[in-house]
């Protein structure tokens, strides 16, 4: 193994890469050509093969076929250490950090502090990563990759959990790195972001490269076309279109309410501070906020998953809950589709026969969910751990709608989803609100556009307090100021 001299490895070319995972074909002839001094975006739906391609480049996965060149020479990567020796540094997405990891050494601390100032990313340096939320974990992952300062830097969906301000600083830093002659790979699915920062774009679909072009040669429509192969509405555009109703909608009967609710987390910090909220049938209540301000806990209390220390909670019988971390909280990866549907529904009378579970009925229901919500799988007996993220979320949404007779609580329901899946989730939420005798819907999201586009009422969580947004404040800037105010106060 030869160590590539720094600065000479800032390019990579993958040609005709194939990779299967058992029955699942992840890559079927993907190409990628990254040149020094550019920010190269890799776009694609969930399950299109973006992460697999990154895994191949990072030495974590060995391709079944295809050619990999770094710095102009063919290489074979057996491990992430091999890739690192060739100058490839990776920041993974949600599954990035294994086990506990601390930024605790003085030298690293100093550099990390400097980087945090430069990027605007802010993480508690002394917390064990196991205790961090999804957002902070991802921030740590990005910082780790930046700290090592590799000639070729690859980031997997870095913006999924960042605030708008953090995204801007990060992009500024990436721009500087590219200016120094490094190559930056940015994997994502947010078209606006890509168009704002990338020099060149590669689009993957079903494991193949469907488009490779310079930024100036393409527009959003072309990228969407290449990603999904069909015309899908831009979600933001869809949202804007329905925004006419505002808060003038008549509300139905109140189905859930919190009154003076207080809660502290395991470390004793107050996460819910005197929260009052009442939601009614037929309305969609949006709760915006920067992660870590108590909205996770609020969602769980509303869904009946957490019992607060003080205050009264009234929660109805039929509650559906779409948790933010679907792989840890929403699904059991080792269970198949039927068992995961059973997870939510096994307590309902129609699926019980004395102490026994009525598997025949549950299987039928799972078939229905799979069909209605287009969960792409080999059948209802496939392990959900082998489904793509988008299909997992379709399963969760479909399943939770089944039991959301009175209330649906959705927590960042489109995080990490591709364009088509996001549009699907939004459409379902909207359909629910408009259904006669439909449930109340509470949307807790860090995606401000999503909240603004879908909600009848908007509230903001800051430092455990729930702030009502009146019509005058209900602009992107107004709500954003409330959100960021909370963030600053926490930091």
């Amino acid at each position: 193994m030869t160590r590539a001299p720094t600065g000479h490895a800032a390019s990579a070319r993958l040609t005709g890469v194939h990779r299967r995972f058992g029955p699942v074909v992840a890559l079927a002839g993907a190409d990628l050509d990254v040149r020094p001094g550019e920010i190269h975006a890799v776009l694609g739906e969930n399950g299109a093969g973006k992460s697999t391609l990154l895994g191949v480049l990072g030495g974590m996965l060995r391709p079944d076929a295809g050619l990999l060149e770094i710095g102009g020479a063919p290489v074979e990567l057996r491990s992430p250490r091999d890739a690192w020796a060739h100058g490839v540094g990776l920041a993974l997405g949600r599954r990035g950090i294994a086990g506990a990891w601390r930024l605790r050494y003085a030298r690293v601390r100093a550099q990390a502090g400097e980087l945090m100032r430069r990027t605007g990313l802010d993480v508690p340096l002394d917390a064990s990563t196991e205790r961090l939320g999804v957002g902070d974990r991802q921030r740590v992952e990005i910082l780790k990759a930046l700290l090592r300062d590799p000639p070729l830097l690859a980031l997997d969906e870095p913006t999924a959990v960042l605030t708008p301000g953090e995204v801007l600083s990060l992009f500024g830093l990436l721009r500087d790195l590219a200016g120094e002659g490094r190559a930056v790979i940015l994997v994502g699915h947010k078209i606006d972001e890509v168009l704002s920062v990338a020099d060149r774009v590669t689009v993957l679909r079903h494991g193949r490269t469907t488009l490779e072009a310079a930024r100036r040669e393409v527009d959003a429509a072309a990228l969407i076309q290449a990603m999904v192969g069909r015309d899908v509405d831009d979600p933001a555009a869809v949202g804007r279109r329905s925004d006419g109703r505002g808060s003038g909608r008549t509300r139905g009967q109140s189905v859930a309410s919190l009154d003076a609710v207080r809660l502290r987390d395991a470390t004793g910090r107050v996460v819910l501070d005197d929260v009052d909220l009442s939601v009614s049938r037929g309305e969609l209540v949006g709760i915006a906020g920067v992660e870590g301000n108590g909205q996770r806990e609020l969602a769980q209390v509303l869904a009946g998953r957490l019992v607060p220390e003080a205050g009264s909670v009234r929660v109805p019988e039929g509650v559906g809950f779409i948790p933010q971390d679907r792989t840890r909280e929403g699904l059991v990866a080792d269970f198949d589709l039927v068992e995961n549907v059973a997870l939510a529904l096994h307590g309902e009378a129609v699926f019980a026969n004395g102490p026994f579970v009525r598997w025949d009925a549950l299987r039928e229901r799972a078939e229905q969910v799979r069909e209605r919500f287009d969960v792409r799988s080999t059948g209802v007996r496939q392990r959900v751990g082998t489904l793509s993220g988008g299909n997992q979320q379709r399963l969760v949404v479909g399943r939770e709608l089944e039991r959301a007779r009175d209330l649906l609580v959705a927590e960042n329901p489109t995080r990490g989803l591709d364009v088509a899946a996001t549009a699907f989730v939004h459409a379902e939420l909207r359909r629910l609100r408009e259904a006669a005798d439909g449930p109340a819907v509470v949307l807790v999201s860090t995606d401000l556009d999503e909240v603004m586009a879908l909600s009848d009422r908007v509230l903001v969580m800051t430092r455990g307090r729930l702030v009502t947004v009146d019509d005058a404040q209900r602009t992107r800037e107004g709500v954003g100021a409330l959100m960021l105010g909370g963030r600053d106060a926490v930091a």
Partner: protein
Amino acid sequence: MQWLSSRLAGQVIAAVGALLLTAGISAVMLRLGGYDPLTAARALVGGAFGSSNAFLSVTLVRSVPLILTGLAVALAFRAGVWNIGAEGQLYAGAIAAVWVGLSVEGMSPWVAIPGVLLAAGLAGAVWALVPTLMKLHLGVGEVITTILMNFVGIYFAAYVVHGPLQESRGVFPQTDQIAATAQLPALLPGTRLHVGFALALALAMGLAVFLRRTRLGFQVRAVGASSEAARVAGRIDARRVILLSFLGSGVLAGLAGGVEVAGVTRALYEGLSPGWGYTAIAVALLAGLHPGAVVLTGVLFGALEAGAGAMQRDAGIPAVWVIAIEAIIILAVLAMDQLRRREVRRV
């Protein structure tokens, strides 16, 4: 059922791999020690399966405590409870069984035998209760507490046979024999195979149905597979599920002790168990924690123990070698199981 059958295939591969690995290492060791591996292998197989006597009266009898403790471990592990305490729970069950068995003299077997088994199961549950409460209320990890409770159980049995339950002559450190009507009758006349084997089969079947068909069984699997998903998506009270499966595990391990006393030894001795509660972990893991498969792996380990005795008797191989080979088997099983898991995770 696709993933199930592929998991089963992996299980079978792991089991066969473990056996081959053991056979290879053992053959080399025996050769180095100056024994003929083929003679040893012939004695081993002959002692386990070579005759109906060997199979019914030795192999299957030996498999009973292994199946029962294997089921205990499988149930606990399925719920994500690391109960390493089957050994102590077994001793607790044995002590209770003897205590009741001694005091039901003259009663009908229809009363005496259920009484003995009930006491054994309850005692096993009581032994599991201490680590359970410490886990649920104090957050103390059950691995350490269950191991410590093993020592308490073993020494408590030693105290009992020297003290309160010592035989009526007061001479030897053992109890009197339990009442004749409390002893388990033979399952097949003329063999040593007692009805405890049928009980073990029935419990394995029952546990399989419980896990696959019942609501509580499904909750056990869900909590074990992902306690977060069970709480958030399943609205399952994980503490209740952990409590019940821990105690159920204790009942099964306690029954192992009671059945052994009522079916085989008829009295309590020090050193009743050669470590069944620990071997049970290998039995359960090799079975992929599936109750039906635990019967098979329990019989397999019973056969190995039976064959080990025959290796001493018929091939003249000293006991220390036999003990070493058994240890290699357990290590090989654990190694293959770990490899299989890693393979599953990669796909």
